């Protein structure tokens, strides 16, 4: 594998840490945001040297944080609802798969909005342009979906 010149990890934390914390809080509820961000950044550190390129690092960190938050929500649902032992947290290389399996039961339009937001890292204007709706509608679609994942449990 060709070595790529990745920036020192902490420069990413300094540049994006605060917005990632906001994101983690939105996904999980305020009280767990810091724990989720810490776990997400540790996952990111584990995977960091294996990245094949140094592009879209901000979007990548968003994705890692999103997946960590969803894992956290899923684990919490399990604690509440069942005795099922928690599955091991998904490995960093499989973020996309984990993400897809988590949103798989949602309506197609909702899935699309979530992918545009968290996989492609588009803002709401960008999502609106892709989906042919208003930015307000795009934001609503994403936030409704997050609320659904948070409150109704996530399909296993």
């Amino acid at each position, binding site marked *: 594998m060709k070595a790529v*010149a*990745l*920036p*020192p*990890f*902490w*420069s990413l*934390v*300094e*540049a994006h*840490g*605060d917005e990632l*914390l906001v994101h983690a809080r939105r996904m999980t509820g305020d009280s767990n945001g*810091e724990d989720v*961000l*810490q776990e997400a*950044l*540790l996952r990111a*550190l*584990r995977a*960091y*040297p294996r990245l094949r390129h140094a592009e879209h690092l901000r979007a990548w960190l968003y994705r890692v944080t999103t997946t960590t938050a969803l894992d956290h929500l899923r684990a919490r649902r399990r604690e509440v609802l069942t005795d099922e032992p928690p599955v091991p947290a998904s490995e960093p290389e499989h973020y996309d798969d984990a993400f897809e399996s988590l949103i798989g039961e949602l309506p197609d339009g909702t899935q699309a909005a979530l992918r545009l937001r968290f996989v492609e890292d588009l803002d709401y204007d960008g999502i609106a342009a892709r989906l042919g709706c208003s930015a307000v509608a795009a934001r609503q679609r994403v936030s409704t979906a997050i609320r659904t994942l948070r409150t109704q449990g996530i399909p296993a």
Partner: protein
Amino acid sequence: MTLPARLLESIASAAVREGLADAVYTRLDTPIGKLLIVQGERGVVRVGFAEEPVDALLAQVAGLLGPRIVASDRELAATRDAVSAYFEGVDERIDLPVDLSLVRSDFRRSALTLLRDEVGPGHVVTYSALAAKVGHPKAARAIGSACATNPVPIIVPCHRVLPGSGGVGSYGGGPDVKRLLLAHEGALVA
């Protein structure tokens, strides 16, 4: 950046504990400005003066040790204490492990190692005398290069190396800083 310092320290400590950090850095206020100190597994690998761009220094270390670099005052508490003790005059030897991997040649590495081992606080040596100690009496100019590219100034005391012609000569942190460090150690400079 607005992440709480407590959260950043917690993340950095967890990273170090799990063996996920290639290097840790800290910034330390001193009488000669805010120093950057970067430490890897084997010791301090880089010290930067206040005016040197942090990003470039960290990128240099990332190229050598890996990109998983985190900041933590807590993890480097012992290192900070040792450097602070130097500036406070409590202990001027700065007895810390150093990693000279950023030094480009064996000659330079052996010159810097010898300098550190043999020229203690309060003492000075000329470029040509240090060259002679290394066993290359004519290599005063190469000694100058070794000092000019010293990746861990202050800890490896290149400020104690002076031109034979008088004065303090040049220094990465500027001649005034060199003069200040020597005066602090009680070394007399013409």
